[in-house]
């Protein structure tokens, strides 16, 4: 227990401060000072060393387009977070209605008025509807299977596939992605708030909160794409969003593998596999990345050869023709994964297959080891099948760890740019397709010499990450 020492006894205990002060000093100098300096310089035109003059908000104007709009949306977002936890407060409801219905609807109207929001070019109705139907069927059946019928929130889970279906219907009707999502969001928000059967239900409340976040996210997307800001930056955020989504999916193999190893009958094999899984972990990430860079080499690399040998290349050529990818995969041509515009994003997502690595499996295994044998026996008595055992016994116990990893992963993905720089070069690949915000910041400062601009980009990233961390703190709090 910490000993409390009152202020009057300081003169006896002051040497204790010396235990802390070196740390404080170091951190203040090397963490706080640069951060504050960066915020300060984002209002300047700075070339990194001597040229530095104040230009006010010009950097932000160029990056954001209309900073006031952004600040307004962020204010609403802050209000949303602040009031969301409180039960049934009027302020909470106010913010939620604004975020769910009013803002998306307004954005859609503004977009349509300005000529945006409509799909450019011909709309392949059949493909859109087909794809939408496919996603709907898959998600619906999966959710239906996984979620217990007695679960109060089942209707929320089931409405997600319906939402996707509605979006693809709108896309087939001629709206572009953003427009379709905004319209679907507005309509579903109106439904959420007006259907009488939902009033007072606990699940309805959380659904509304979630929906409000969705609405805000969509409005941010709309602002990013159309507020006149730097297209490169918002393209980068879009890429980051895609990466985050896929990284969440990439967490699944580690969890599944850990569970399977855990469920092995023989302890000896359990131990052996545990040791063997350490091997892919301990290869330094940099070496792994460079090995994959070699794999992606179109002529000498292994990836293309494997695809050809296993017949996946033929499958891809077929898909290319069927889905109209425009010749990404042609018969006889080795695709250039790191050089072709359409292929760089898939390459970035695919690298590191099968994505078991860096502490994931071992941590989950360690967590799983604490499960008592009796829980399994009880489950067997109840006649549970393996999937249900997973969902009810194992998943909750490692949920903490999964949440921690997920948050760390999201924050890490938003910041990371070193691996993109190594795989694709400082320009972010062909036509700068993968210029994530971090890379843009690095390039502006260290290649173009626009350090003030770079600091402004950094500041924007900071706000986004801060927002995510806030959400995490409010909603995904870890229970000890």
């Amino acid at each position, binding site marked *: 227990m910490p000993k409390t020492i009152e202020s009057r006894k300081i003169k006896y205990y002051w040497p204790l401060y010396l235990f802390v002060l070196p740390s404080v000093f170091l951190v203040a100098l090397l963490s706080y000072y640069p951060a504050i300096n960066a915020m300060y310089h984002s209002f300047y035109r700075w*070339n*990194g*060393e001597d040229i530095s003059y104040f230009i006010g908000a010009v950097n932000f104007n160029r990056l954001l387009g209309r900073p006031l709009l952004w600040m307004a949306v962020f204010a609403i977002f802050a209000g949303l977070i602040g009031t969301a936890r409180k039960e049934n407060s009027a302020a909470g409801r106010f913010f939620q209605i604004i975020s769910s219905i009013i803002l998306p609807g307004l954005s859609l109207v503004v977009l349509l008025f300005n000529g945006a929001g409509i799909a450019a070019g011909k709309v392949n109705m059949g493909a859109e509807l087909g794809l939408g139907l496919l996603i709907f069927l898959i998600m619906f059946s999966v959710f239906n299977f996984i979620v217990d019928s007695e679960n109060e929130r089942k209707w929320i889970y089931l409405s997600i596939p319906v939402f996707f279906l509605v979006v693809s219907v709108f896309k087939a009707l001629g709206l572009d992605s953003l427009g379709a999502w905004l319209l679907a969001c507005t309509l579903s928000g109106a439904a959420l708030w007006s259907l009488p059967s939902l009033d007072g239900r606990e699940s309805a409340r959380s659904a509304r909160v979630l929906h409000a976040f969705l609405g805000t996210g969509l409005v941010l997307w709309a602002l990013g794409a159309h507020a006149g800001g730097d297209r490169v930056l918002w393209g980068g955020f879009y890429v980051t969003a895609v990466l985050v989504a896929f990284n969440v999916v990439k967490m699944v193999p580690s969890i599944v593998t850990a569970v399977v190893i855990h469920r092995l009958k023989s302890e000896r094999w359990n131990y052996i596999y545990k040791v063997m899984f350490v091997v892919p972990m301990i290869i330094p990430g940099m070496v792994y990345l460079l090995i994959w860079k070699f794999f992606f080499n*179109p*002529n*000498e690399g292994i990836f293309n050869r494997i695809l050809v040998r296993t*017949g996946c290349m033929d499958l891809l050529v077929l898909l290319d023709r069927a889905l109209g990818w425009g010749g990404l995969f*042609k018969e*006889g*041509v080795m695709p*250039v994964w790191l*050089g*072709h515009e359409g292929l760089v994003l898939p390459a970035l997502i695919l690298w590191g297959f099968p994505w078991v690595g860096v502490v994931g499996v071992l941590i989950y295994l360690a967590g799983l080891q604490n499960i008592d044998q009796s829980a399994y026996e009880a489950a067997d008595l109840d006649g549970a099948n393996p999937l249900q055992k997973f969902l009810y016994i194992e998943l909750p116990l490692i949920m903490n760890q999964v949440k921690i990893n997920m948050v760390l992963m999201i924050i890490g993905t938003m910041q990371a740019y070193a691996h993109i720089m190594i795989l694709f*070069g*400082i320009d972010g690949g*062909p036509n700068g397709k993968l210029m994530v915000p971090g890379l843009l910041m690095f*390039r502006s400062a*260290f*290649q*173009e*010499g626009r350090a003030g601009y770079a600091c402004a980009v950094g500041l924007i990233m900071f706000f986004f990450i801060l927002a995510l961390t806030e959400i995490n703190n409010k909603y995904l709090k870890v229970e000890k």
Partner: protein
Amino acid sequence: MKRKQNIESRISVFNLVGLAILAFCYIGALYNVYRIKGSGVVGGKKIIRLAHWQLELGIRDAISELARDFEAQNPGVEIVQIPITERAYAQWVTTQLIGRTAPDLIELGMFNIVDYCGRYFMPLGEVLRKPNPYNADNPELKNVPWMDTFSDGLSGTYIPELLDYYGVGFSRFTIRLFYNKDLVAKAAGSDRPPRTLDELFAVCQKVREYSDARNAEIRKFNEEQAGKDGAMSKYLPFLRSPRKSPFVLDPIASSRYQVSLFRPRYSSMLTAGRVLELDRNFDGITSFDELVLALLEGDVKYQDEHNVASLELMKEFSKYFNPGFMSIDRMDAGFAFVQGKAAMITSGSWDASSFIKKINDQPAGDAVLEVDGAAASTSRDVAEAFAKAAEGGRKVELLIERDGARHRVKISPRKAATLWESAGIELADISDGGGAARPVVVDVDELSPAHAAGVRKRMRFDVGIFDFPLPKGHPVFGKYFVGNVKEMSGTGFSFGVVKFSDNPGLALKFLQFATTVRNNERLNERAQWIPSVKGAKPIKMLEPFEPNEEGCWGWLNFVQSGGRTAMVEGQLYWPFISGETSTEEYLRKLDEQLPEATATDYDNYVTNYIEKTPDKNYLRSIWLAKFAFARDDAARREASLKLPAAWENYLLFKNAYPKHLVNMGPLIEARPDTAFSRDFFKTYDAFATKRKE
């Protein structure tokens, strides 16, 4: 429990061993660090650092050799070479310059030369006007200013915006075509390089036909094999009977980069005449504003027949490129050429030595020493032995030499007319390294008995170099042909001296040392590049690379480099050159999209001049003051040299806007009634209102 205890104690011993290893490594690391620091300035050595991005073979060794000679002559000096990869060069240099840790000599390029030189590099004009002290023992060059000892007077490194020279170049570079002599001989019958454009296309066509013929054979074979497949093999791929893989051979290996080498050259050959016609102020170049005027007044259109001819010519070329050439990079194209998958490739003289080395790294092929115990001296002997064996139904035993080791292989030939059909090998009599000619396996048929026996084919070949064939006399393009292109290969591979270097004098001395006739010749001989100093001769292999000093220049290029027009045209050109759109469609899209982009770029152009005029005025005033108030003769002399140039520059910028008004005024009033003009002014008016002319 007891087992656990043992495990615990095992852990601690384990850990101790681990810690011991860690400590050992740390000591090793400390020693390493000490070694690094020790080789620093301790000991009084002055260190000159030199950074460049030339990672090609030979050049690094060449500079090291030169550096060692310099160090021998100047004890107490050490020269450290820092090669950085191309991709990271700009960022690395910028970071080092900002951090003031930059090397003393930096290769100029990859970054904005004007800005960086002005800020970070020393102007060298003064030193260049004096003779090179290292030439003092050469009676001819004793009193010749250093800059005149270069083959182009060092005009390549003069920066007009800064009115001075900022770099000294060691080599020159030109672009030529490389070709695979063996492949071309096999496909076209002779390995003589094509002289004219028809000959080039004829050779390409023959290469195409050759590869098509091979592929037809393979297809036939595969179809026969497919006939032998059972029903199950449709679902289980590994049950299928073996197929042969397609024979890959393209006439010309290409990539985005290679296209950017072909296009200006051949366009220049066809459109340089038109370009000169549009030059209004007779300064020899058609600048962007002259081009815009010509477009507005209708003097030139995108559909100009010379332009169309050059587009068609490029399209003709692209028929012979490898498929998917836009997405690969130049190294992959080079790789294809080296592997024998393409007959020709274009690249610069800087690639010559690395191509040749890579080709010589390829397998030399199995050399047949003995057949069935009897020594084999020509391929005919071997073929005869195979034929006899096929008759008798026996196997042939060969003693082959591969990579210096000898192996025995047994091949069972089939009954057939040619060696290729019976055993699946092709032989040629080749003498590697000047010895006697031996039969060497130059080709092995997949799935043949020879392939099964593990025989390896030869992948090396002879490389030839030839200049771009001229369209003279070509039935279609001949009438647009203006002349060969003058190669403005100013000195490249040039180094600038950083302002805040610790030893600028020493760095400069090294540059002078490297550009004497003898040293420059030696450097380029070792690097296998072309020297930049007058009188230094390139090696024999590179003689075809000697630049053409006479010819035409400039090509009808409707874009401003780096501007919106470049972006738009680039996006339209790629589908065109890859065969997805036709010439008419490309031109039509240009008509739709380029006028607005041209207006944007033109506005930028004029605004640039307007904004920079005060700077030029400032510069002129400085030199005027320096001239008027010069403290000594040397200062006055320097000012008298710079003042006229500064004044000219100032006038150029000052008069740009009035010139723009004079030229554009009548056009803005009475707009020509062309589609171009309409689109152009739609965007231009928007800018003009912002500027309030």
